[in-house]
């Protein structure tokens, strides 16, 4: 079943000139279509300015299409009466943890979303505790948010999204500002949430993170350049060069060695080298 359907989506930014007239600006997204199956894990990659973050903001109606449609669980984001419903189904986690914390105490911050939905207090307590446990931050629940590290703050932001009980979470470069430990812990949580059935959309510059998805969408200048499994994508050197992407380390080594395109993991490589040894 398709959870999100993007149909011929175009987003154009307009700016107001000095004389007050509207001037058509850049097309950030130029007529793209794809759908995301319920429960799947999709990565979106591409250079800065390729339209990834604009796309993310369209998925829960933070931005509306200039033309085309975004349908979330059967609801069109253009339908204003459905906007609350859509946003409670699709949560968002952004790049900078410091911009996403609204309360001074960790558990208040996680409770902010459900409180705004009018969830009864006892249910909020339950949701906040379980969300904090899920991201491994329960023991920090009474701490000041400013006392936390970047990775911990990002986990709080994820807990805030989880407490809304969404069916889908869109992560927009959630690990870009984190150290290696923070990155690993956030990726573990993302994979775990996905395995619990939350439809996951991950925008990232790290190919090793994108490679963990079921499917990778490559954006370039507002278009979808490629939409395939990680295995297919990282076997297509032509595409990788065209999109200005980086290779995951195993693939880079495979290319330096001139080994077959089918090698995607360290285990694949060990098996191949073993064969060649004999």
């Amino acid at each position, binding site marked *: 079943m398709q959870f999100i359907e993007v149909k011929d989506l175009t987003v154009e930014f307009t700016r107001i000139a000095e004389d007050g007239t509207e001037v058509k600006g850049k097309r950030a997204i130029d007529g793209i279509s794809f759908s995301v199956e319920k429960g799947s894990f999709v990565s979106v990659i591409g250079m800065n300015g390729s339209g990834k973050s604009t796309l993310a903001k369209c998925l829960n109606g933070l931005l509306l299409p200039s033309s085309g449609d975004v349908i979330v669980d059967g609801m069109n984001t253009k339908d204003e009466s459905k906007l609350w419903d859509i946003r409670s189904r699709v949560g968002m986690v952004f790049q900078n943890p410091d911009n996403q914390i609204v309360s001074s105490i960790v558990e208040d911050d996680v409770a902010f979303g459900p409180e705004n939905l009018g969830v009864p207090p006892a249910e909020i307590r339950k949701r906040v505790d379980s969300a904090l446990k899920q991201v491994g931050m329960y023991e920090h629940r009474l701490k000041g948010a400013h006392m936390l590290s970047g990775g911990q703050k990002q986990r709080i932001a994820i807990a805030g999204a989880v407490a809304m009980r969404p069916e889908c979470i869109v992560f927009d470069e959630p690990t870009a500002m984190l150290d290696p430990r923070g990155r690993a812990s956030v990726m573990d949580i993302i994979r775990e949430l996905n395995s619990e059935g939350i439809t996951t959309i991950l925008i990232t510059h790290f190919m090793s993170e994108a490679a963990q998805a079921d499917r990778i969408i490559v954006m370039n200048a507002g278009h979808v350049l490629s939409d395939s499994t990680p295995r297919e994508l990282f076997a297509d050197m032509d595409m990788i060069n065209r999109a*200005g992407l980086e290779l995951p380390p195993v693939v*880079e080594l495979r290319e330096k060695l001139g080994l077959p395109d089918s090698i995607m993991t360290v285990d694949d490589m*060990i098996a191949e080298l073993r064969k060649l040894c004999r």
Partner: protein
Amino acid sequence: MSIEVKDLRYVYSPGLPGETVALDGVSFEVHDGETIGIIGHTGSGKSTLLQHLNGLLKPASGDVYVDGQCITDGSVKLVEIRRKVGLVFQYPEYQLFEETVAKDVAFGPRNTGLSEEKIETRVKASLALVGLNYDEIGDSSPFELSGGQKRRVAIAGVIAMEPSVLILDEPTAGLDPSAHREILSMIELIREKMGIIIIFVSHNMADVAALSDRIIVMDGGKIAMEGTPQEVFSHEKELSAMGLGVPPVREIMTKITAALPEIESNALTADEAATDIKKVINIPKRDN
């Protein structure tokens, strides 16, 4: 040019409930032309350390010498030190403010009272060093540039002061792969053309391995390890206990050499790894 750090100690909020020792007896030396990578997980004291190197923070005890001059005893004007030691903060593009790229880069030199002619020469040279063309983008607004270009303009503004030491706090964070590569080659070019001391902090172990002559590992406000990339990254277990890693190629090669003991490798880059593997295994040409 040299930097000498002696027994540096710094405490945040001394005497308050949130008292934290951020630096605890840190000593090291950096010599002419060296490139030093500093690694450590969040809160290990990296950024606090950087801010001592041009006098933004004053240590609780200990001293910093820049080119033999003590900058911590109050005898030197800090303006002088900051001219010698250029500090590029994290996400420096947020600090761009002028109407045009040329004006933004010229801001520092202009404040030192240089002639307009000299300022222009410096602006052109600095932009060239960061891989940008004065004639192409000098008159553009810095806010119209791509993320990677913005960052390079901000770095050009520091280089235009002709520092003897360049310090960069996470110069590649948050960039896409191609902008990332541009920043790396920019750092290599600055090193080659200016021959100055470069000290940078990064979470990207592959960058640290590729750029550094020497690596300093910070943990809990102390220097936990110091050495060449080969030396430091041979301590995979210790690094991982500190929440750090090794370059991805090293991780892969650790697994490969464990499975195939006939391969010997302490490679840090894909090129080195490929060479080590080819020494032992004959790989047939791929038919395309």
